[in-house]
């Protein structure tokens, strides 16, 4: 099939956009590719709880006063873990087990389990490598 100049130009444009996108680094939230494989613990104090979809999150300050974003499961995982908006409040101590962001400058972690007041809330039970 013989392609006209316009059609070639359009295909070139499409290719340029695609190639441009391919070099932009993809990041966080969905999936686990953005987080390290190893699971670590974060001990801190809850500053803020957001139950808003698509991902409930906690803001947690650690002992050095650094504030972390902790992604919980999706709304259904989170509800299944037993954690609700009423479970905890700002100021409560929390222990987070999860996978942190590959970029260590980002204080960002995806939780598989959070522990508050001795109760465990398992977001991703199948992923937990128990400590």
């Amino acid at each position: 099939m013989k392609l006209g100049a316009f059609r070639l130009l359009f295909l070139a444009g499409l290719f340029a956009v695609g190639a441009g996108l391919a070099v932009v680094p993809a990041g966080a939230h969905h999936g686990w590719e953005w987080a390290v494989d190893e699971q670590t613990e974060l001990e801190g104090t809850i500053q803020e709880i957001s139950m808003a979809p698509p991902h409930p999150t906690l803001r947690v300050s650690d002992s050095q006063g650094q504030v972390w974003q902790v992604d919980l499961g999706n709304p259904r995982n989170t509800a299944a873990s037993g954690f609700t908006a009423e479970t905890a409040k700002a100021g409560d101590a929390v222990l987070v087990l999860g996978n942190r962001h590959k970029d260590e400058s980002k204080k960002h972690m995806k939780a598989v389990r959070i522990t508050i007041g001795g109760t465990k809330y398992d977001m991703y039970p199948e992923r937990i490598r128990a400590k």
Partner: protein
Amino acid sequence: MQLLDLIAAWPGANWLRHSGTAYLLVNAAHILGVGLLVGAILPLDLRMIGFLRSHPIEAVAPLLLSVASAGLALALVTGLWLFTVQPKLYAANPAFLMKVALIVVALANISVQHRSAPFQAALRGERPSDAVRVLAGLSALLWLSALVAGRWIGFV
């Protein structure tokens, strides 16, 4: 950021924050809107550029334009609604800002294209002018880019 607080406080946003099912239905309606928009505008843009020549423009354009505008309306309404669930989060998300910018340019492109006499002539079956073909190509690239930027929001 008082405006964003005000936006976040409307009852529709509260409802989506408290009902996972409502959220996913509005989310699905947004995807439907995007699907109708891109699914209809892409073949029309391609036809204007010069692909798919076995289908006469005057035969396919009326249906594709109606479907695309219905999809656009649905996507805009549901998109704004979803934005209000966490406006501060989205306003700070580079992929979201890029998506909004792409949509603004794409809407401006629509208004330029639809006002042009050669475009109206093309809808009646005349051969699309070079300007019409360039703007049609731009339209396809802009909407596809907005789609990708939208999907990117969750991966920033």
